[in-house]
């Protein structure tokens, strides 16, 4: 990624983005469905848009997904 595309990515906002509060509220449902292989991006596009854009919420999602996988095995 070069500077132009990185800056473009930073400035580009997704109108679907639900924000941290709603994403955090839904995260356990979203992570469990994702772990089960469900099409979560289609079912919850606003949460998916947020997790792509928000580093901390994306990190929490990765952690929760890992936790769900740990419990399954």
């Amino acid at each position, binding site marked *: 990624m070069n*500077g132009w595309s990185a800056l*473009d990515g930073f400035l*580009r906002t997704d109108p679907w983005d639900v924000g*941290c509060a709603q994403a955090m509220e839904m995260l356990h449902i979203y*992570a469990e469905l994702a772990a089960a292989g469900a099409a979560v991006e289609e079912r919850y596009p606003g949460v998916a848009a947020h997790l792509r854009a928000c580093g*901390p919420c994306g990190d929490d999602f990765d952690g929760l997904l*890992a936790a*769900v996988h740990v419990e399954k095995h």
Partner: protein
Amino acid sequence: MTGRVAAVAAFDADPAEWPRVLAGTGPQREAALAQLHALLLRIARGEVARRGPRLQLTGPELDDLAYQATADALIAITSKLAQFRGESRFTTWAYKFVIFEVSAKIGRHFWRHPSVPLDAEGWERLPDTFGFDPVQEAEWRDLLAALRRAVDEKLTARQRRVFVAIVLNKVPLDALVIEMAANRNAIYQTLFDARRKLRAALAADGYIGDDGWRRS
């Protein structure tokens, strides 16, 4: 099957069992609390280990952070049992709290060894932040000057503060939450609005259109 795993399986067979037992009293509740603590601690340790390479934390500090996150998550979970609606396994819902606690504690830890003073404005780092090639400075110099102008002229004082901290000074969002006594959603929304304003300003100045950059 170990005793602990068997007990978890029994709880998960009935999603209402965990909150029912945890809301109760006596030895059954104490046993459930101990069991949940052990589960949360395992997840917290896994999470700090996953994030550890990015942090300036050593083994004992990481374990201490995992214990603190577990204790605080357990308090949060037991005080919010009524909010569990059975939309996921109880443990997944509970793990969310311990992950959030790990994030919050890592954010707090940042201020023990901040890499830059909060009032610094590292504009000279901006090209590197986005990965602009110094060799091609003639191509991006005007753009970044316009971006800086837009930050100064179009953003509110709060939006500017958040932009400077997160983008220029690389303060983690969760650390800024603590510094500004806010919450993650408020800081994210402030930066979200700033990003939208900056893009609009660059578009108005002719630097960017719907189809991308207008490079001279």
